[in-house]
């Protein structure tokens, strides 16, 4: 039954729903309460998103006159032009620098640490302690330690730089990344490690030639999850930067709204522009993104 709709998507093989087909009719099909909740929730999610999209295409004057949910009679990109002229290209670049600069190194060092913990954890008290430390780290909320982070950043004279956002973002991405990557490295069959060792490979070589290819899906997942977290981060830029040149998108959006709060179409165009990159990513790699969102809780 699913194949009929499938023709729309000339998608990769993975697009096929797993198993099913021969499966007995699932009793979950007749689920009245679930169905009601499902459709109601759809409306609750879609109406605001639709409102954002149509409003961002209206002129401020038209917006006040007409029904806010009506399609724009005279769609315009004027709001987008206005937002782009407010230096959003710079904020976008800043967000890219911060995200890439923190998530890249974070995933790399987490991967190495996870490898070390899984490979050497049994024989090394040090590695078990490190593992315990990262587990504890999962429970530290960023907000609660923001004051000492602010102090450290001032002391190392990085206040009001992009690096000030990058360093704590990098550190706080580590615990969950180590946890998830460790879970996947553990699944690599021991025999493969053993045969690498027989072939005289070093641990460093084994890390890259064996563990890396075999855990690539997990690496992608972790990268996406952490990337989304850093991209959407608000607290660190708010506290650790000051000048407009160092703003990332969420902070810029907030400042923009403070400045032009009456011009709702422009504010919403800014909302669209800041989320467009993520939505594009969502369209391209939905599965990876969703598994990334539950990283660590699902595996």
């Amino acid at each position, binding site marked *: 039954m699913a194949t009929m709709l499938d023709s729309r998507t000339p998608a990769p093989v993975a697009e096929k729903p797993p198993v099913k087909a021969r499966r007995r009719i699932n009793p979950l099909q007749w689920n009245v309460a679930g169905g009601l909740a499902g459709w109601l929730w759809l409306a609750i999610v879609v109406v605001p998103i639709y409102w954002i999209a149509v409003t961002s295409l209206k002129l401020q004057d038209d917006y006040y006159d007409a029904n806010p949910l009506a399609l724009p009679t005279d769609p315009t990109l004027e709001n987008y032009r206005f937002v782009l002229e407010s230096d959003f290209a710079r904020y976008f670049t800043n967000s890219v620098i911060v995200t890439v600069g923190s998530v890249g190194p974070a995933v790399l060092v987490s991967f190495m640490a996870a490898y070390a913990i899984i490979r050497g954890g049994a024989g090394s008290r040090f590695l078990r302690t490190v593992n315990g430390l*990262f587990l504890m*780290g999962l429970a530290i909320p960023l907000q609660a330690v923001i004051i000492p982070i602010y102090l450290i950043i001032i002391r190392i004279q990085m206040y009001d730089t992009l690096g000030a956002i990058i360093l704590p973002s990098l550190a706080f991405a580590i615990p969950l990344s*180590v946890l998830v990557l460790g879970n996947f490295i553990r699944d690599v069959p021991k025999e493969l490690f053993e045969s690498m060792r027989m072939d005289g490979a070093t641990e460093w070589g084994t890390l890259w030639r064996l563990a890396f290819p075999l855990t690539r899906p997990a690496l992608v997942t972790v990268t996406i999850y952490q990337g989304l977290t850093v991209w*959407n981060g608000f607290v660190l830029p708010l506290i650790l930067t000051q000048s407009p040149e160092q703003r990332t998108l969420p902070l810029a959006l907030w400042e923009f*709204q403070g400045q032009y709060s009456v011009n709702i179409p422009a504010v919403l165009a800014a909302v669209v522009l800041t989320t467009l990159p993520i939505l594009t990513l969502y369209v391209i790699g939905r599965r990876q993104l969703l598994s990334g969102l539950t990283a660590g809780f699902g595996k």
Partner: protein
Amino acid sequence: MTIAPPVVRTAPPGSNNAGGSGSVSWMAWPALIAFTLFGVVPLLGVLVLSFSSWTGQTTDIPFSGLDSWRTVLADPDLPHALWVTFLIMALSWLVQTPLSILIGVFLAARHRYRAVLAVLYFIPLLLSQAAISITYKALLDPNFGLGAGLGFPFLQQDWLGDGTLALGVVVFVVSWQFIPFHSLIYQGGVRQIPASMYEAAQIDGAGRIRQFFSITLPQLKYTIITSSTLMVVGSLTFFDLIWVLTAGGPGGATQALAVDMYQRGFKANLMGPASAIAVILVLVGLLLALGLRRLGGRDQADSQLEGA
């Protein structure tokens, strides 16, 4: 978001022959150093700073013993902030959990159209809390928002100007963003329930509702605990959302702990009391996480993870 540390099992003793652990230990150092500098040191630092009267404006840090703690603990704002935090936590749990379970069960059935719905459901998860809050602030504006344009008197209230309503808006916006996440967790949980259990129940003549309460819910126990832990502990850290939406107002009605901390520290330049509140935030979070974990039975720590 963070929290709910599921236990990582270190490699079983059998893998001892892995070429000597000394040869891999160095690989853990970069992560260890990075996390120590910006995770562990700040955690200790916040405790130290809670005994200071640092203003945040200067680089010298005068210590003042228990002054900050006395100030904070005697301040009626603290019980108020705790109460607001608790209200947001409890209400958002009450709204999110039943809906997430219902939607999770709904999405667990493998239907093409439900997969399409799921694609739409998850969009809020991708947006920053700043973007979501800004959108709702505009949408709920009594003069320029959706309600004013549509002419629905119900929607036209001063949502963010009234204390009770503002708290409701915070809970709604939290739910709007996070129900998809928890539905996803429940969807995974429901899909792991063996179909044979439902078959047996059908043979015994149990109806749909009976099956839900006798099979689905009990089987989801560990999923519920995981999801609730994330909800409850995560709700302590709502800052972006509240700050952008209401900045703690009106009249302190949405002044949760994290907002209180920010205002004392970075608005009133009282880093000592703000650090004391941060310590309280960490302690409350740990207590809740441990308490919920105990609820699930400590020996079952692993299946909590697998239930998710």
